[in-house]
């Protein structure tokens, strides 16, 4: 007769990840609220580099995605893996390394971003040493997860595990492929890709970071915690199988919908759109599966704040996954892209789906791990209420702002002139920014309530570090009789499941990227486009360092209004020396691709020092330190050599004369400034920034002039 084995679940790792989730949640949201207010009150940038919008915005996004959400995913996954596999985690040591390694990445990430060390690629801003550390820690997580699966006492892998496996393998692939970069100092590197290719890889990554870091692991959490909270199994296990395969296969294709109307090849754009529309089906299938699980339990939803949060989370998931495909339609995208509509869309998913699922999970988990009940149901209900109001107050004004921006950008007078200056479209939406910031503040208050409530819960109970359980070893369990379908085999073979998942997600990525990389005519070169001068290159690196891409695009779409406002539409061949690309994804400020030569050097000098002096009502932060800090030219030869390795055609031994040319060009700009009565020092960083800005779009303009 087979005997059940006694063992203990490890709750300590879950506890650590849970506490880290709450801590980083407050930090990330606090930074989010600050930058939201900065958009209405630029004085909150405080005139110092470390608190300027361009540096804080990546800290906010990285903190909420990788710290708040990341820790929640790991904590939830560690809890679920042990319960549905009936075993303790494979290694307590690996769990510890995973936890502390991840926190180390977060702390170093925040510090380096504040200091201006960034790759300039959204949601992948961390520099190369941290990229390597992320890979190592992700591997540790993988070994710990697969080790646990291999020593399990439950033959079938519950569907939540599939989502964790799919997440692990895909995030590993995305992170590695997008992080190919060439280091030239201990903390700086250039992307191995340039221009269009870099954009394609980055948004393949960026989109799928949303898909496989913010969605698939949360579906794993949903498939466990919603049935547990509702005290009934998932509505349809059949749906969950279809949901998993359809979602991971389709999601990976949709990245190019971030690049519609750009210089990306048309076929890749069309592909992104088609698969984005197809995404509605699996996404809604999953959402309905979650909601239908509550059948017969809706009376509980009225009373239980956890179920309320899960319902709002699933509804937000449904809204976001309907809106996402709509935004990928070219005619809708033409209106929404670069506006605050996208920010509203993202936050419905982040605050509604991710945030509320996390809070629901923590309200369910923490009392159980501390052997007690929730300290205050009333406080949790209050959290639910002000969190929901916060989401609404955040999203509605931003939708309004998005529509307003787009309509105003595109409006022409009867005589065929653009009706609004860009600045007018900014000042018009500032009141909406204030409301959005208040919405964010409300949501943050809810989070602080949750921290208080959960802390009191912990204090009221006794933490159960090792929770007793029992189960029969797999070797003592009889194999199911009869013929086994191929799918039921992979349902209990984790490595095969991993391989199938990898194949499913690889196909989309390969089909999209290989032709762009390998077929020449996808990125036609333009003879007039030349590499940046050493001073321009230095200026470009400062542009990246200050996070200018968080507010300015460098991509003019082929629309009448954009050509009238910014100049000729962008060509793929214009970006072939851009490591990394800087197309941006939001126009809080105007597009800069053809800013070169539009204003004199003195305009840029004064504007960077105090934007409001030049443009009354501007919300751009001031950059006075650029006028004070000397440009570090010691690394110019290294930068030139790195660019040469990446294929930028600088002449042989150019690195040896690069600084001489840099000084000559800097002196010419300083001389220009002196003519306009500005006592400029040619050694300052501002000179390099001016050189870069004045270069943007110039190659094509000069080429046209020469042809005339």
């Amino acid at each position, binding site marked *: 007769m087979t005997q059940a084995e006694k063992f203990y679940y490890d709750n300590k790792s879950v506890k650590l990840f849970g506490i880290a989730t709450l801590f980083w949640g407050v930090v990330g949201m606090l930074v989010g609220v600050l930058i939201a207010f900065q958009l209405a009150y630029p004085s909150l940038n405080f005139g110092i580099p470390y608190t300027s919008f361009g540096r804080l915005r990546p800290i906010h996004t990285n903190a909420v995605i990788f710290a708040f959400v990341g820790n929640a995913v790991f904590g939830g996954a560690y809890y*679920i893996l042990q*319960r*549905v596999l009936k075993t303790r985690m494979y290694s307590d040591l690996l769990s510890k390394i995973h936890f502390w390694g991840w926190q180390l990445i977060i702390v170093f990430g925040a510090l380096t971003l504040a200091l201006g060390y960034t790759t300039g690629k959204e949601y992948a801003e961390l520099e190369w040493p941290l990229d390597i550390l992320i890979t190592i820690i992700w591997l540790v997580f993988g070994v710990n997860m697969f080790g646990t699966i291999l020593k399990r006492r*439950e033959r*079938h892998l*519950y*569907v*939540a595990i599939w989502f964790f496996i799919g997440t692990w393998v895909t995030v590993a692939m995305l992170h590695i492929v997008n992080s190919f970069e060439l280091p030239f100092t201990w903390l700086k590197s250039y992307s191995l890709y340039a221009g269009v290719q870099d954009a394609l890889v980055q948004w393949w990554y960026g989109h799928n970071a949303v898909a496989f870091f913010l969605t698939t692991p949360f579906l794993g959490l949903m*498939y*466990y915690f919603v*049935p*547990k909270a509702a*005290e*009934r*199994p*998932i509505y*349809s*296990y*059949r*749906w969950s*199988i*279809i949901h998993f*395969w*359809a979602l991971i*296969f*389709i999601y990976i*294709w949709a990245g190019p919908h971030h690049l519609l109307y750009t210089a990306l090849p048309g*076929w890749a754009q069309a*592909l992104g759109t*088609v698969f984005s529309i197809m995404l509605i089906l699996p996404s809604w299938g999953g959402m309905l599966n979650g909601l239908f699980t509550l059948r017969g339990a809706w009376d509980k939803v009225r009373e239980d704040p956890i179920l309320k949060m899960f319902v709002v989370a699933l509804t937000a998931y449904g809204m976001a996954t309907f809106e996402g495909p709509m935004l990928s339609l070219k005619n809708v995208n033409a209106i929404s892209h670069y506006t605050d509509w996208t920010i509203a869309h993202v936050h419905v998913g982040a605050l509604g789906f991710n945030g509320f699922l996390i809070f629901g999970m923590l309200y369910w988990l923490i009392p159980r791990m501390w052997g007690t009940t929730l300290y205050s149901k009333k406080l949790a209900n209050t959290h639910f209420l002000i969190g929901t109001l916060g989401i609404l107050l955040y999203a509605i004004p931003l939708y309004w702002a998005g529509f307003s921006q787009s309509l105003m950008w595109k409006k022409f007078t009867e005589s065929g002139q653009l009706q609004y200056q860009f600045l007018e479209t900014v000042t018009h939406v500032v009141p909406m920014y204030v409301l959005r910031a208040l919405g964010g503040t409300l949501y943050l208050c809810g989070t602080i309530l949750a921290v208080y409530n959960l802390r009191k819960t912990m204090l009221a109970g006794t933490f159960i570090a090792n929770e007793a359980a029992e189960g029969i070893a797999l070797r003592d369990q009889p194999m*199911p009789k009869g013929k086994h*379908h191929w*799918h*039921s085999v992979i*349902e209990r073979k984790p490595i095969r499941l991993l391989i199938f998942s990898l194949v*499913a997600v690889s*196909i*989309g990525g390969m*089909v999209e990227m*290989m*032709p762009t990389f*390998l*077929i*020449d005519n996808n990125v036609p070169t333009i003879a007039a486009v030349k590499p940046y001068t050493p001073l321009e290159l230095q200026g470009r690196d400062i542009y990246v360092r200050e996070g200018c891409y968080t507010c300015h695009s460098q991509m003019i779409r082929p629309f009448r209004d954009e050509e009238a406002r910014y100049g000729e539409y962008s060509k793929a061949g214009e970006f072939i020396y851009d490591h990394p690309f800087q197309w941006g994804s939001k126009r809080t400020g105007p597009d800069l691709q053809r800013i070169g030569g539009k204003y004199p050097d003195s305009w840029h000098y004064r504007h960077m020092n105090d934007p409001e002096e030049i443009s009354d009502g501007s919300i751009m932060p001031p950059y006075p330190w650029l006028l004070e800090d000397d440009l570090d030219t010691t690394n110019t030869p290294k930068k030139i050599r790195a660019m040469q390795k990446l294929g930028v055609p600088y002449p042989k031994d150019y690195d040896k004369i690069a600084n001489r040319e840099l000084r000559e060009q800097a002196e010419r700009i300083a001389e220009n400034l002196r003519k306009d009565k500005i006592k400029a020092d040619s050694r300052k960083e501002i000179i390099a920034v001016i050189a870069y800005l004045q270069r943007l779009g110039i190659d094509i303009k000069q080429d046209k002039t020469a042809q005339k």
Partner: protein
Amino acid sequence: MKFTNYLKDIHNVSIYPVFSLILFTAVFVGVVLYTFGSDKKKMQGHANIPMK
């Protein structure tokens, strides 16, 4: 001839997505047939794993 050169010679690049769509449809149909053809009790058993 290098692998990259083979790919450079491909004129009709649209075959890639068409191939993938067919592949997706085939896998999707396979999974649907499997899930809806499989034993209800077995599926119920799997769904009950978190409830044990």
